């Protein structure tokens, strides 16, 4: 790769000898290149993150003061519902699929994903799915407003948006399943000949397990929403008590999907963090094999704990006890991971570049979210927390300072490899401190609001909650602005900046650091063996 680059050259002139398809349509719409598709996924996810974030701003604006100031209660409920659907299915999941597309082939020495054409398809379904979902905002009756959990009978009472919601969810499910099959096929068949399963980086491992979760539970969600559709339009009574059905059944089916789903959103984050911390601690990951087993254990447990979301629906005592103990068991493999990250840092020669800062914040703040999770696992006290802001605080700690922080950390970590330029470290650090302080101002007071009894999904509240809500809103606006700043940092890095070396980070292990920066359009084309010494876990067998 003999690049002849000057900084002011525009991007597409760089890689003519890479045989990139010419023209916008051929390059982006019809691409089968894993790097291009990864980029598309990441851009799409970020656009959805801003879209869903804008809805969060509407929510925080309305909650800035008690009373109704800016939006109607029904529109507020549309915002909470759409914010969740867009962030879960449009931002976090596609962002991880984008990282998987970019990194997995490069991490295992594969030339591309196993099924490149399906890869293109699974991405290009997504804009259509979200166009269908978002179109309901402009319709008579508005967007779905019954919560992202789509509980009947409420979700069926909101007009015809339920049909759009169901078909959008179907499309997202098809996209996720195709993406997951692709990841599994790539990891199982496309590894360089001398790369064994226990040589694979942890990001690849966590994605393999995530992909299994996806193909197991996305069909369950599709089935559940299909039954909602037939209940609404075709006279069935799956969830209709008047016709002999049971609305609680929907909750069981939904959470049988929903609990593995939350691990779908966090396991790849564990993988990203497990790549970053060893690099900046300059030590191999502590307890690599135990990390793999812990990930598998979390995935298994995720299938048998679903009813802890439903402690208040009225279950037999035995069931409450079972789901309580099974849920608390998840803390064991998760604890293994957290202690392994800490042990990796122990006596390491640590430096604190932006990806490492976000990873450290992840370890601390995700653990706070984990602790409130253990609190909610206790069935007797969960009756107090149920449907309050305590729950909102919990899942935002694990999803924003968990999943989203891991994605941001990964973006800073691999951006030099993707773009060929170093980001501005000073701006990165400003972004980090701005985000971390504001996100805590945003979500930490919500714990107290929840414990004091403020219910979620309500546009108004009684006056004793006013101060904490105002703090939370101020934190929210600041955090939202910080992510606009992130766009600027990424934009600036892609356009130019200090040239990145192939290794990028001093002593970084992993095959992605053996190819030049920016990564050439085609890598590892020869299917040949790779240098195991360059891999973090290359010599384990």
């Amino acid at each position, binding site marked *: 790769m003999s690049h002849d680059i000057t900084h002011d050259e525009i991007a597409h002139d760089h890689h003519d000898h890479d045989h990139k398809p010419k023209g916008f349509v051929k390059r982006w719409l019809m691409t089968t290149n894993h790097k291009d598709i990864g980029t598309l996924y990441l851009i799409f996810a970020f656009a959805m993150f801003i879209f869903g974030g804008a809805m969060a701003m509407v929510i925080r604006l309305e909650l800035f003061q008690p009373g109704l100031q800016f939006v109607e209660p029904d529109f507020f409920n549309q915002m909470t519902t759409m914010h969740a659907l867009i962030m879960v299915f449009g931002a976090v999941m596609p962002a991880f699929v984008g990282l998987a597309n970019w990194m997995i082939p490069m991490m295992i020495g594969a030339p591309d994903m*196993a*099924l490149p054409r399906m890869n293109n398809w699974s991405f290009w379904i997504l804009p259509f799915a979200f166009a269908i979902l978002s179109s309901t905002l402009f319709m*008579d*009756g508005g967007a779905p407003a019954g919560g992202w959990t789509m509980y009947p009978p409420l979700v069926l*009472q909101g*007009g*015809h948006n339920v049909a759009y919601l169901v078909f959008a969810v179907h499309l997202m499910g098809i996209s996720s*399943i195709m993406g*997951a*099959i692709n990841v*599994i*096929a790539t990891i*199982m*068949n*496309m590894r360089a000949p001398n790369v064994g399963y226990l040589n694979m980086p942890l990001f690849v491992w966590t994605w393999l397990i995530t992909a299994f979760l996806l*193909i*197991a*539970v*996305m*069909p*369950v969600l*599709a*089935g*559940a929403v299909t*039954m909602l559709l037939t209940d609404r*339009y075709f*006279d069935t009574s*799956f969830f209709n*008590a*008047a*016709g*002999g059905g*049971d609305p*609680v*059944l929907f909750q*069981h*089916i939904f959470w*049988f999907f929903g609990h593995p789903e939350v691990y779908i959103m966090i396991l790849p984050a564990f993988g990203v963090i497990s790549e970053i911390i060893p690099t900046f601690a300059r030590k191999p990951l502590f307890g690599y094999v135990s990390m793999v087993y812990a990930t598998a254990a979390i995935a298994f447990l995720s299938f048998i704990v679903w009813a802890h979301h439903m402690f208040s629906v*009225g*279950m*037999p005592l035995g*069931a409450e006890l079972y789901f309580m103990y099974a849920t608390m068991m998840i803390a064991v493999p998760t604890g293994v991971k957290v202690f392994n990250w800490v042990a990796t840092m122990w006596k390491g020669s640590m430096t604190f570049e932006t990806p490492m800062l976000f990873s450290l914040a992840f370890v601390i703040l995700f653990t706070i979210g984990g602790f409130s999770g253990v609190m909610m696992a206790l069935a007797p006290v969960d009756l107090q927390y149920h449907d309050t802001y305590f729950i909102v605080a919990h899942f935002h700690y694990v999803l924003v300072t968990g999943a989203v922080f891991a994605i941001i950390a990964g973006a800073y970590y691999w951006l030099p490899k993707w773009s060929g330029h170093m980001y501005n470290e000073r701006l990165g650090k400003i972004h980090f401190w701005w985000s971390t302080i504001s996100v805590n101002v945003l979500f930490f007071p919500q714990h107290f609001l929840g414990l004091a009894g403020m219910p979620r999904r309500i546009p108004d509240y009684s006056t004793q909650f006013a101060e904490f809500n105002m703090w939370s809103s101020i934190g929210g606006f600041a955090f939202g602005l910080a992510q606009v700043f992130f766009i600027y940092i990424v934009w600036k890095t892609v356009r130019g900046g200090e040239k990145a070396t192939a290794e990028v980070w001093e002593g970084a292990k992993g095959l992605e650091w053996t190819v030049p920066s920016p990564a050439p359009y085609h890598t590892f084309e020869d*299917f040949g063996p790779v240098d195991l010494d360059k891999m973090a876990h290359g010599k384990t067998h």
Partner: protein
Amino acid sequence: MQRELGTRKVVRTSLVVVVAMVGFVGLMIPLYDIICDITGLNGKTGVVATEDVTNQTADHTITVQFDGTVNSDLPWAFKPKQFSMEVIPGKLYATEYIAQNVADVAVTGQAVPSVAPGQASLYFSKTECFCFTEQLLQPGEEKNMPVTFIVSSDIPKDIEVLTLSYTFFNKNKMTAEQAANNTNHDNI
């Protein structure tokens, strides 16, 4: 070639898993009903039992509470005549609910019973109930709705209170809605 075969195998196996999981959702419907029958999970009351009336009675009493609600689609007033009674398990008892149609059109309603705690529903049977059939009320008509029930003498001692609850649904509305589902909007 080897690689391509491997990929094909992965895709085939994955698709089988996807189809199997769709089947699993379908299976969950009957499975849930069976589990509820065994455990009383959803509080649905069991089959009508006339031959359950035996001479065997328990030596303690339990409190049975009565509760009645109407679904918001139904323009009726509906409540139990008596809010609770002390019963001896094994004996047959009768009570009544009162329903009145407050609309100016005739409306058909269907009551759906539920017993809490769910476990108690396994020991609760009705020999006669207004919920067995649809009920038609003329405009303004008021009607007494009788229930006769028996609590089995096998009921565990730790259940001291059980609640029988009815929700009345609008049968007309359901059929009308099913007939004309192409209306632009549903007024709830």
